[in-house]
């Protein structure tokens, strides 16, 4: 048995497919590649493949960790090469490393995600300076309440503790007029903040709502807790 951790990226072509679609896509691609996927034991065997954190629809990603168990050992570089030959445009395996079978499951260790956020406000006259001020105001808030729809209806939660870092980026040159924010947010099973929620809040503060289909999001990397700081997962 071999446990491999691999990283994949997702481009614009595939932002509309769901987490479960990606799972199916990866499983089928691995089978086509002839990778010896291990399965769970029992009544209904499932491939032992998991993704660190579900990737929301509409978001591109640079480096999403995932892990897989294989029946036979193969070299990580061969695994990546065979895998990539079976993947459609829009998804690519960046690299893979062998990890110890004793290491905790990836899903349990993920604590934070780094996003590049490109908002686009309805009113094009909003200046970068105004947006920068808005960002500063958000950072100084002690509580940020958002409404989310759960299984038991709507509920309110405070996402302020989940915003680890929020920054307005200065763009020079060609992309001068393109707004860019960087967000480092808590994510995972213990709760988290969503970039869209923060952009919506910003839009409300600026008096110009964010048009959802014009918001571009890129997840740069996922992080695990490491003492007082974080390291890439």
């Amino acid at each position: 048995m071999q446990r491999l951790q691999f990283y994949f990226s997702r481009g614009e072509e595939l932002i509309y497919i769901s987490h479960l679609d990606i799972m199916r896509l990866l499983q089928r691609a691995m089978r086509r590649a002839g990778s010896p996927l291990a399965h769970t034991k029992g009544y209904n065997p499932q491939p032992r493949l998991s993704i660190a954190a579900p990737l929301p629809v509409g978001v591109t990603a640079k480096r999403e960790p995932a892990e897989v168990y294989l029946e036979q050992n193969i070299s990580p570089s061969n695994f990546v090469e065979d895998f990539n030959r079976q993947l459609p445009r829009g998804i690519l395996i960046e690299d893979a490393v062998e990890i110890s079978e004793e290491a905790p499951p990836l899903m349990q260790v993920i604590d934070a995600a780094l996003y590049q956020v490109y908002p686009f406000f309805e009113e094009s006259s909003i200046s970068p300076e105004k947006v920068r001020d808005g960002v500063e105001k958000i950072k100084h808030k002690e509580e940020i309440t958002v409404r989310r729809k759960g299984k038991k209806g709507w509920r309110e939660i405070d996402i302020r503790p989940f915003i680890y870092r929020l920054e307005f980026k200065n763009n020079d040159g060609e992309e001068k007029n393109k707004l860019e924010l960087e967000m480092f947010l808590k994510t995972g099973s213990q709760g988290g903040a969503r970039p869209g929620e923060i952009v919506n809040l910003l839009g409300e503060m600026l008096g110009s709502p964010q048009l959802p289909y014009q918001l571009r999001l890129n997840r740069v990397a996922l992080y695990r807790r490491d003492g007082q700081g974080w390291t890439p997962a």
Partner: protein
Amino acid sequence: MNNKVDVDQINYLLYQVSQPSRYVGNEWNAIIKEHQQVSLKLALAFPDLYEVGMSNLGLQILYHIVNQKKDFVAERVFAPGTDLEELLRREKISLFSLETFTPLQEFDLVGFSLQYELNYTNLLNMLNLSGIPLRSSQRVEGPLIMGGGGCAFNPEPLAPFLDILVLGDGEEIILDIMKRMQKAKERGASRKEILIELAGLEGIYVPSLYEPKYESRLFTGIEPLDPQAKLPVNKVTVDDLNEVPYPSAPIVPYKQVVHDRGVLEISRGCAKGCRFCQAGVTYRPRRHRTVENLKQLAVSLIQNTGYDELSLASLSSSDYPSIGQLVRELSAEIPGWVNLSLPSLRLDSFSVQLAAEVQKKHKTSLTFAPEAGTERLRKVINKKISEDEFLEALDHAFAAGWRMIKLYYMVGLPTETDEDIEAIGDMVRKVIDLYRRGGYREKLKLSVSASTFSPKAHTPFQWEPQISRQEMRRRQKLLAKALQKMKQVDFKWHDPFTSCLEAAFSRGDRLLADVLETAWQKGCRFDNWTEYLAMEKWEEAFAEHGFSVEEYACHRFDHGDPLPWEHLSCGLSKEFFIKEHQKPQGAL
């Protein structure tokens, strides 16, 4: 609306709809060609949602065959969900193909798959969303609109909207049609000239070259308007399935579709002669792929898709001549993680043993269709299965480990009495008793579903009326009562109005086209989805043209009456159908 829909527009649309993965294209094995490199473009159109259309084998077969040709391209288009429709209309964006986001009107040929009468409003809607005039007579340019598939054998309610119809197997004729169109295009032939030329091909019906006649709105016959218009039009069939291409690299959807697995068509046609069944007639004769051919196809299909399930498809898979050998040899050939499934099983012990042999991993559920509750009624419909055989098969199924059984029945069959319906309850009780006697520890789950008999064109029961909606509800109640004390049973029945519409359109004449167009104008879409079916709009549409749904659905034809679909032939004579219709009278 002349150019391709651009990426920004697509993004703008997809961000705003639910289930955007229906519209992204770019799936594994999808084929994308430069349009400058081909001389003829076909859009394969399916008048239902992506997840339904992508489960259709015919679509994958034709996609594969046409795209194998260097000069041709085939792309896909499905009915957009109501949310996307709203956006397309608001933003004045044409419905587009998934491969290259090309508007439908840019194609040379648009081929609709006609699988179900309740998709017809979607067909009109898709034409309209593409800026294509609905009626053949209004179209002076743009693609030819073609229809094929099961419902093409009575296409009269759609006749004014379609330029050509294909009767029978599409594998060979699709290329004949495209080659003729390619040549006609080169020499600059007119639309009418092309249609007349295509009408000369075996299997092609060009509705505009025929004129139906009526007397006080009752169909009296049809007249050809051109020497090329054949009478009757015969269907085409592929002689040897092994000789025609099969999609061993089908498109693998991202989204989970209705049949999310590899499909191997092992046979075409059916050995049975159920008198209500249209597929059993139109897919004649029975043909099989060889074990050798299927083994090769199975191996490459799994390699090319990565599917972990392979379904052996046919109208009755246990009737494949060497099914045992096929299953054993396939199992030996394909990887261990592939699960074989046999979808349409005969109701006998042999089939159950076979199913047990292939479904090694997890035994989900077994589905059987006894159709009727008494042996008398099963004889009337020619479903040859005795109660003893039925119970013996189930006994085997329980012993092999199945705990979930689905039983399909039909209510409203010709000659049905209340006793026949109550007998369904007895039959189900015997199943429960049988299970109890077996002393199995787990709970038994029985799903019983009752559809309503809808008479179909080209079947021995084509003359028979459907029961009224009121009567459907009465009989459903009777059946529910017969099953009510059995807590193992989950009873489902079909919506009466759905059955009623299906019956009206499956035997309808050309006068129904106006009703259909009116219903579409009133907003009818996705009539096969109960949450969308708008009964009142449909009833208004019928009434505005002076009809009622029941007038069509509950009509009894006499053997001497001209039938609106008789100019189309599936290869069986009227005498045969009359004989088959009269046979069960002795069983009354």
